């Protein structure tokens, strides 16, 4: 890709040209997403793989009345080639459209509202980043991934709407390993690389590794008082999210893991308030059919269901208004309201029990009952009277959210941590979460 191309202008221009070639009453919806990412993958503080990914994907939906078909191509940046590819795709979609019936659930925004949000960053050159990271890992077993560069998403339609979201970010997701599976996990992400902030992160990790040097203990299955740090909370609530806990379609089809709240009057803790907090997230505030997202959608308020995330298709199917959700209807900027446990005194709040820094590989034991399972990972400690006694070998939990976020939730920390999603499946994620830690009176461990 020609890096001198302005991606926003290019997208606008290519959609404008395609619009002029539409036939009859056709409507074109177009989305673009792309990135120019430098990545460095490290193991034992040496480089395993490093390089650059340069990609742009154009996705279109070609509509006539209530009939429509969709498709996507990669953009090359060579205008002639991209125009030809798009024209060929649109011709194919027209041909396919002859074979499909009206889609009663088709809904797209017909009231154009254009927006633009560009977050410029200050990112180090790759050689500088590599040197800084390896310097921090000198004498240590550093393993992880550094990814940095521009990501962007755009929406345009033939009705004249244009939305653009672009940011320059970096994300260093790494561990210092002590031995075997004992490690301190950390994340440094943002728009501007700051040596001082990075040094503080490295120092925190070094202290965690030091704590792991004590001989680990193995705990028997049973119930333990537990503190779930924000990253561990993320694993619990992400599982619920991905399986439709906050989505309209999963509610209507009774597939939500929070089914008992729908039909049996079950409630979560009154301390728990969850929202889709788009205003404070780092994701685009528009979606693929051109609808804008409200700043906030309350999902759970003081333990009771509030609203669900409603995609345009669900809005049509179930006769409600859309709130700009994606087709998956899961939060992209989830926030849990902080509680009253002083963040600086969680050890004291826990007292004697398990301090769980991270959970891993959560899934359901019984989805309809919201019974979940998963493993502890990285730094998990046994605490007594607020002091670290020993690292704990990995444990499997199996418990319901109605306990963990319900009757056994003693308190949430008074500060929520911003957690940027490190996922890079296909492209770099712009999801995030803002979560506090949680003190749970008893959590069930089974293996």
């Amino acid at each position, binding site marked *: 890709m020609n890096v001198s191309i302005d991606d926003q202008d290019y997208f606008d221009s290519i959609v404008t040209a395609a619009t002029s070639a539409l036939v009859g009453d056709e409507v074109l919806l177009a989305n673009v997403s792309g990135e120019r990412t430098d990545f460095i993958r490290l193991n034992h503080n040496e480089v395993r793989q490093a*390089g*650059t990914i340069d990609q742009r994907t154009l996705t279109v939906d070609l509509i006539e009345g209530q009939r429509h*078909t969709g498709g996507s*191509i990669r953009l*090359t940046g060579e205008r002639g*080639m991209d125009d030809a590819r798009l024209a060929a795709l649109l011709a194919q979609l027209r041909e396919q459209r002859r074979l499909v019936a009206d889609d009663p659930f088709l809904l797209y925004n017909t009231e154009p509202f254009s927006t633009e949000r560009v977050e410029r960053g200050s990112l180090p050159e*790759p050689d500088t980043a590599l040197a800084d990271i390896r310097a921090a890992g000198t004498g240590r077993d550093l393993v992880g991934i550094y990814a940095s560069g521009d990501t962007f998403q755009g929406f345009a339609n033939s009705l004249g709407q244009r939305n653009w979201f672009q940011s320059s970010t970096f994300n260093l997701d790494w561990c210092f390993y002590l031995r075997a599976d004992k490690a301190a996990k950390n994340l440094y992400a943002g728009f501007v690389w700051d040596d001082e902030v990075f040094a503080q992160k490295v120092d925190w990790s070094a202290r965690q590794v030091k704590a792991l040097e004590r001989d680990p203990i193995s705990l028997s299955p049973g119930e333990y008082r537990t503190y779930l740090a924000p990253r561990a909370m993320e694993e619990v609530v992400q599982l619920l999210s991905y399986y439709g806990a906050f989505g309209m379609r999963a509610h209507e089809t*009774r597939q939500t893991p929070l089914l008992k709240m729908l039909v049996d009057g079950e409630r979560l803790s009154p301390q728990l308030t969850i929202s889709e907090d788009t205003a404070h997230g780092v994701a685009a505030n528009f979606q693929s059919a051109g609808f804008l997202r409200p700043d906030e959608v309350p999902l759970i308020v003081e333990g009771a269901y509030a609203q669900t995330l409603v995609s345009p298709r669900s809005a049509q199917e179930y006769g409600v208004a859309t709130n700009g959700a994606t087709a998956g209807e899961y939060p992209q900027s989830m926030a849990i309201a902080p509680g009253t446990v002083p963040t600086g005194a969680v050890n004291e709040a826990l007292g004697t029990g398990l301090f769980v820094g991270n959970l891993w590989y959560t899934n359901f034991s019984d989805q309809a009952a919201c019974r979940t399972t998963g493993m502890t990972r990285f730094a998990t400690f046994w605490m007594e009277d607020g002091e670290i006694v020993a690292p704990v070998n990995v444990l499997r939990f199996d418990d319901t959210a109605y306990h963990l976020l319900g009757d056994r939730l003693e308190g949430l920390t008074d500060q929520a941590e911003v957690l940027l999603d490190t996922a890079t499946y296909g492209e770099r994620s712009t999801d995030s979460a803002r979560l506090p830690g949680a003190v749970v009176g008893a959590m069930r461990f089974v293996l």
Partner: protein
Amino acid sequence: MTDLLIESQTFEDRLRTVLPTDVDYASARLVDERTEHLSVRRNQMEPVFSEFDTGVMITIWDGGGLGYSATTDLSEAGLTTAVERARYWAGITSGAMVTTAAPTNHPVGTYVSPVEVTWDTLPLNDRIELLQQQSRLLGIDDRIVNWGASLVRRDVDQLIVTSSKDGDSGRIEQRFRFVYPSLRATANEGINTQTRTFGGHAYCGQGGAEVLGRFGFGDAASRVANEALELLTAPNCPTGVMDALLAPDQMILQIHESIGHPLELDRILGDERNYAGTSFVTPEMFGSYQYGSDLLDVTFDPTVPGQLASYAFDDDGTPAERQHLIQDGILVRGLGGAASQARSGLPGVANSRADNWNRPPIDRMANLNVEPGDSTVDELIASIERGVYLHTNNSWSIDDSRNKFQFGCEYGQRIEDGEIVGAVRNPGYRGISSTFWRSLSGVADRDSFTVMGTPNCGKGELNQMIGTGHASPACLFSNIEVFGGEE
């Protein structure tokens, strides 16, 4: 959208023109992919979606450094820019790499998925009607609240060309044709929701329209719907230590998670410790470790016709061949490509694979199969005094060393005194990989041996999602911790 880049000599010449001949090793890997997504939900056709994905990954080894650069710009200027970027990375990583040994092979070869029945015989309107028919067979009762049928076709053409300063060059052309059919029915009554699927996306493979018949796609919908309804009134799976008979569509998950991932050499070398995890398997175990009972034979077999991850070469250009990983219960070989073998000194296989043009290859499972035994399924059932027959995975969780696991299934059948006595809902079991396979007490014969795959194996940083093939007969495990759902 019919021009195939892999058939363009002009484009191949362009790749060869831009590839440098003054470095230790260079390659260009073109991936040109076309995917059609068809789906009917609750008898309503969802939008037809066609995906065209094309890009090139440039790889350069030079002076002990390694650089990648992936681009969608396929012009000569765009590819030249990508080459320069990869060269830049090779320069700045020189002296900092975990391994400095550049590849030396420049293989030449081809692979084409076996296709017996082309899709021309089942045009788009017929494919849509097929899905509508299946959908109508799924939505048979008011208690079935959600249902759907889908069909994904995916054609992937891959061309790898290589060069080096020694003047050598190579060329690998592989053309894959994938098919992913699926069915799903969800039944609900009060606080009980149960879902049955057609194999949980396990019934996927290479080929043409004949893949649908191979898996019995046209005959499965009524069974799927009726079993979802049956589960609404079925009791919870009993809890306790008992025998567990795993059907092939659960075995593939068991193989995948507790044999496949632990044997990946890049995990053992530590590459994945920040994300997908490490392994309880250590280098000294190879050649002597009793992984399972002597009934356990596991092969890496990329030569099975029509299996999801069959190929002739991996993405580093290593020729692929069938190898035993576990023989008579003993661990003999790991899952690691040429780079991991060189780093670890351990025997491996040709499994260095990338999920697309925009990711570098890493160690992945390909076709990982449990070889059939000589008992019939009926004989295995007859041998069980108290146990559960578990079908179709729906939940998977395992620790980061791939040891402590807990898996759940859609559908269970309670076995008492050698006979199936009824369905049970929410069946699950847990165990520890390092000892679980030693409790393997029966392996069914070729009659139940089913060739399947899973399209969604996640791993790697940058993250990669790739398809893996698994084949297995039903297998019996003794004295397993089994459990059901909430009462």
